[in-house]
């Protein structure tokens, strides 16, 4: 019998009942709720006359619909109603809520790891596709829809089909100016936005082992942009050091017991994967997207694809449609494209290390005239730590706006939008049509690249910024 993969080990540990050859009823260890879907699920449950099966395994925070303006000014009426409903329904069900302005509040995929709620070997779900983020700690984490959300509230379990496995090995030493965000965008460019559909992706290789946890969370976060709803990194000493002492991480003897179990989780050397991809990270340069799918990505020193040079008619038409939406010319260099907005934030890139990387570029410089640049920390704790380090001051001095934590302009659910036709460099995860607002044009990039672009007033190569 061949060895088992990380996914298979965690999966097998959670099977309550085998329902068919490839479908199981899985136990869910952590269920995270947010303001867009949390109260809706709890109300749905109530209307069916059911109760939350395990409120102690369920946690909630508002992040999507809140304004990130100072004092939360401008939260819409409906956003306030959702917040009130989340407060009322979590209280009624005995679910812990990390509320506005309290430590623990923040983007749901930032607070899970930060609080030690997300643990290696745990199954974690949330009504949000970027739940794959938590896989950076060696968890089996994935996004679910509203119906599955109600199912988990009612049963603390979920019916799931066992996915195929894909191992993406990043080998080599990361060049200067290249980050976790660039690594994962390069992989998406390589295998496409559907390259991971139906798979759970395990990220491995020397470059992953060298990455701190926050970088691993960024990598796993974009798994869904590969089409994979699950992305994970095997836990190691870096993982244990990150988690030790966090509020909800086990302590004392229980910590020792947990670490002992977590050391058994990494894929066996003879584990078999359905597909394997190897990426040489030494060839990666900072990445930036040019189109309307995350697979529309190039190195920042590259050129925008020219549809005229593409033979396949479907691909050519897709490029033409994307370029028309983006207002770009095929064949032109991507660097130097003027930008109107820069957004540093989102569950992809709003953690302390992301803000430090952006601040390092911004320090002592000024945001270009005509560019509006926002920094939205991922959580209340990230915000407080950043302020304690003086990062807020660096950003404000450089002309960035320093905001309150939340999802903000990543998906614009709270009304914070890029105006129609305007161009944004964003550290978020989706450059979809209209994602940052109707007809907004989004270029995805790393925090350092985004900060460099804010300073330059155009898409910029951070490696030319001389730090």
């Amino acid at each position, binding site marked *: 019998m061949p060895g088992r993969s990380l996914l298979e080990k965690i999966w097998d540990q959670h099977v309550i009942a085998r329902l068919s050859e490839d479908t199981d009823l899985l136990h869910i260890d952590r269920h995270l709720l947010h303001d867009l879907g949390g109260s809706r699920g709890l109300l749905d449950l109530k209307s069916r006359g059911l109760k939350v099966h395990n409120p102690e395994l369920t946690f909630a925070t508002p992040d999507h619909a809140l304004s990130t303006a100072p004092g939360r000014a401008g939260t819409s009426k409906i956003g306030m109603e959702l917040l009130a409903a989340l407060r009322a329904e979590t209280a009624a069900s005995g679910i812990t809520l990390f509320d506005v302005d309290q430590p623990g509040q923040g983007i749901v995929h930032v607070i899970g790891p930060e609080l030690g709620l997300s643990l290696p070997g745990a199954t974690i779900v949330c009504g949000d596709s970027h739940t794959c983020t938590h896989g950076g700690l060696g968890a089996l984490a994935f996004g679910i829809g509203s119906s599955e959300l109600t199912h988990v509230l009612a049963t603390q379990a979920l019916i799931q089909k066992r996915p195929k496995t894909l191992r993406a090995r990043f080998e080599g030493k990361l060049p200067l100016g290249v980050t976790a965000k660039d690594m994962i965008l390069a992989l998406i460019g390589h295998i496409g936005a559907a390259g991971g559909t139906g798979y759970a992706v395990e990220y491995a290789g020397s470059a992953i082992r060298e990455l701190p946890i926050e970088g691993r969370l960024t990598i796993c976060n974009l798994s869904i942009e590969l089409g994979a709803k699950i992305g994970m990194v095997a836990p190691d000493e870096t993982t244990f050091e990150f988690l030790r002492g966090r509020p*909800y991480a086990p302590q004392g003897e229980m910590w020792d017991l947990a670490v002992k179990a977590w050391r058994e989780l990494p894929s066996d050397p003879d584990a078999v994967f359905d597909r394997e991809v190897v990426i040489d990270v030494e060839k990666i340069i900072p990445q930036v997207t040019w189109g309307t799918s995350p697979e529309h990505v190039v190195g920042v020193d590259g050129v925008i694809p020219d549809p005229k040079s593409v033979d396949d008619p479907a691909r050519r038409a897709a490029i033409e449609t994307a370029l028309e939406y983006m207002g770009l010319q095929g064949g032109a260099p991507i660097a130097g494209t003027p930008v109107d907005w820069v957004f540093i934030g989102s569950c992809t890139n709003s953690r302390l290390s992301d803000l430090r990387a952006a601040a390092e570029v911004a320090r002592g410089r000024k945001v270009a005239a005509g560019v509006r640049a926002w920094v939205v920390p991922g959580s209340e704790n990230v915000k407080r730590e950043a302020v304690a380090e003086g990062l807020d001051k660096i950003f404000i001095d450089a002309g960035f706006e320093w905001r309150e934590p939340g999802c903000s302009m990543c998906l614009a659910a709270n009304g914070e939008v890029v105006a129609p036709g305007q161009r944004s460099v964003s550290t978020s995860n989706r450059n979809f049509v209209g994602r940052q607002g109707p007809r907004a044009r989004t270029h995805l990039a790393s925090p350092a690249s985004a900060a460099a672009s804010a300073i330059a007033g155009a898409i910029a190569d951070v490696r030319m910024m001389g730090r």
Partner: protein
Amino acid sequence: MPKPFDKLTATAAPIMRSNIDTDVIIRIERLVGNGIRGTLGKWAFGSLRYLPDGSENPDFILNREPYREAEILVTGPNFGCGSSREGAVWSLQERGIRAIIGSGFGDIFFANCFQNGILPVIVDKAVVDQLAADIEATQGAGKVSIDLETQTIVSPSGARHSFEIDPRRREGLLKGLDEVALTLQRDDEIHAFQASDRTARPWIHSTRTPASRTSA
């Protein structure tokens, strides 16, 4: 509880662009609020269906006869990728869509379809392309038939194509099964799992900590 699905003969609209994400199917601002069910059909594919001034885009297929009445979509690769928003499925359902045929779907969207009694059918891209061509050859007048019981699709040209589907999913759709009710019948097994897991992995289950510890 989803409505059962067994067979359907209906107008089908090919929407062949690759990577149509759930943000394009339904914009986020339509999904903010707890009273949205029943309001979404109008906003399905909003950014494609309407021009910036709010009028209908005559070039978009669902704005043209006979596709306006389509109950089946024939879609390009990776339809429904991106966000987990189930509102994407709700909006299509409220627009009258009951089945979607494509070469591949976003994993979460695919699962959400079954939860709402919508049949997503995966067939080879060559079959999808042929279906789209057959539909366009009749300018949409030729109907497409889908029979879930026999797992076959009949194109307007009369060509028959079989498709594979997970047997559990198939049964769930045919009978309109409610997964929550089914799983609750196994509540004893869930409790038994948790009891033994509390010994094996106590750190998963003891989560009650004082609020004062939430500062990381």
